[in-house]
């Protein structure tokens, strides 16, 4: 049967609960009611904190730390339909954790591959994220990414930016990771004013663009290779590609 849930992690955990307690046979999981239905029953999941918490505790008990992280990570891949495979992953994990390594099962292979895709995106964005300095010294970065990787970026840059306050703004999801002296949080951003940059910002950006050009070797010119390594969709906020 087709199952409808609200797309939240809590909703998904409730779904897992219902699968076990209401003995659902799931054929598909959707976030939105499809426009046309042919003879199919739809079971709607209503997010429920108590049920979700129960499942969360069970996950914490039966899955290793690393595999719990896999489950959370998969959920950050919010532009992929991973729910059915994730449900299978959890089902197999409860039954016999040893089988979770069996990548000849298409669901488990999908989960493993998707997590790698996420982590490789995270790794790329560790490099490709660009900060700009605001008037008050805060560093501000805009990103547009396929998956929700703010938690990763936030942790990564907290380690390397020391005491400097910074904001990473996910333009696609209207979320922002904000770190200042007193707090570290992910906010949802309803609207924002165009920021005012520090006096030095334009100059440093120009230096960077100069460096970027000067360090390329003409006789090895290979824009195709460059495009493979920094595909166009990453370049939106990388100033070296805007000159």
């Amino acid at each position, binding site marked *: 049967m087709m199952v409808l849930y609200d797309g939240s992690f809590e909703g998904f955990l409730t779904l897992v609960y219902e699968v076990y307690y209401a003995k659902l046979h799931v054929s598909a999981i959707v976030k939105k009611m499809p426009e046309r239905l042919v003879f199919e029953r739809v079971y709607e999941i209503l997010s429920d904190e108590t049920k979700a918490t129960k499942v969360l505790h069970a996950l914490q008990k039966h899955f290793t730390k690393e595999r719990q992280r896999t489950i959370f990570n998969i959920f950050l891949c919010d532009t992929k339909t991973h729910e059915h495979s994730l449900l299978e992953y959890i089902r197999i994990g409860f039954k016999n954790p040893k*089988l979770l*390594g*069996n*990548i*000849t099962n*298409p669901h488990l*292979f999908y989960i493993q*591959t998707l997590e790698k895709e996420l982590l*490789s995106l995270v*790794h790329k964005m*560790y*490099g*490709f*994220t*660009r*900060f*700009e*300095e605001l008037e008050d010294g805060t*560093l501000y*970065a805009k990103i547009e990414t396929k998956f929700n990787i703010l938690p990763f970026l936030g942790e990564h*840059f907290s*380690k*390397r*930016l*020391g*005491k*400097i306050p910074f904001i990473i703004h996910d333009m696609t999801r209207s979320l922002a990771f904000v770190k200042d002296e007193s707090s570290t949080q992910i906010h949802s951003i309803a609207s924002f004013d165009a920021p005012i940059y520090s006096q*030095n910002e334009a100059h*440093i950006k*120009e*230096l*960077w663009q*100069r*460096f*970027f*050009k*000067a*360090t*390329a*070797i*003409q*006789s*090895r*010119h*290979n*824009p*195709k*290779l*460059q495009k*493979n*390594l*920094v595909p166009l969709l990453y370049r939106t906020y*990388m100033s*070296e590609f805007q000159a």
Partner: protein
Amino acid sequence: MKMTVTDKLTLLADSAKYDVSCSSSGSENNYKTGELGCTHNSGICHSFTSDGRCISLLKVLLSNICIYDCAYCINRVSNDTPRTAFSPRELAELTINFYKRNYIEGLFLSSGIIKNEDHTMSLLLQTLRILRHEYRFNGYIHVKLIPGSSKELIHEATLLANRVSSNIELPSAKSLALLAPDKSKEKLLSPLKHARDISLERHNKPISMSTQMIVGASSESDFDILKLSSSLYQKALLKRVYYSAYIAVNHHKHLPVPELCKPPLLREHRLYQADWLLRFYGFSYDEILNENENLDMQFDPKTFWALRHLDFFPIDINTAPKEVMIRIPGLGIRSILKILQARRFKTLSFEDLTQLKISLKKARYFIVAGSDYYRASHLYEERLKLALIHQGGDIIQPTLFDTSIYTGEL
């Protein structure tokens, strides 16, 4: 005429660009609360230039003034080019400004020889001191050891930097004498030997070191080059040897004529592939090539080796141990890991391998998977060569980065 920082950066980045290394990997995460900068074990690429090389570090010379006259070098004293120098403070500030904006992982600092070796090394160290002590900067720093500078200075460099290097420039003493009369093999290797000894006394984990040699400016065979690399990996505890396809920038009686000379990119690519085989795949240099031989241009070194050792094949991927599997052409470490993981659960067929997104393009000629093997061509060298050529189109395009895109290692 006084140059602005922008002019200096343009000139000194341009002069530094022929150094290949840009890796920022291999340093453990050294996060300290409230301090600026932190290294990342796998290294991070921050951008890629129009030649497809990665930018991980701010790679500049402190100065392009040089008292040496090396034939192949753009900064040799006999060249009439504009000369300039950063002050250590200018460069430190620039590094911090770039780092804060996440343009770079850190600094790669080299220099022409100003006045003498010790003077130059001291200036490099002064830059490092400002970064480490004043700015409390913990990001990645790679510094060139100036051959001929004193032991004390080299000692200090190993304390301040994450990686030190000294380029051996050319693959033999003979070529050095011909093209770089101010340098000798002993002089170039001595700072690396000092650095190794010093850091071994201090830690059980020695400081990471690398070197670079120019390929195609002199007459050595690939066999000579790989033999040298392999002995450097074993003796000097080098982490990496970089190969740099010779790019003609000068006229010289012992060098190829610039107008007629294209950088030998494919040869460079093959050397990197062979280097990978040395470091990660358990091959020795004399397995890869016979004396005086060069690497094959048509086939990658692993395929070439396989074609000469057909008695080693076919390999049963359901039972063979890891170190045997990694000798199969067309299968990299990642594919092998997937196979090892999956075969615990079932006997794998060709179809299973395809399901696991493992490319069989080359590998299928060399493996057995359950009852599957490639029936169309038997293990005869000539037939296999033809099959490999026809299905693969032409020669594989040289991309330096095919194994390194994820880790940021060049």
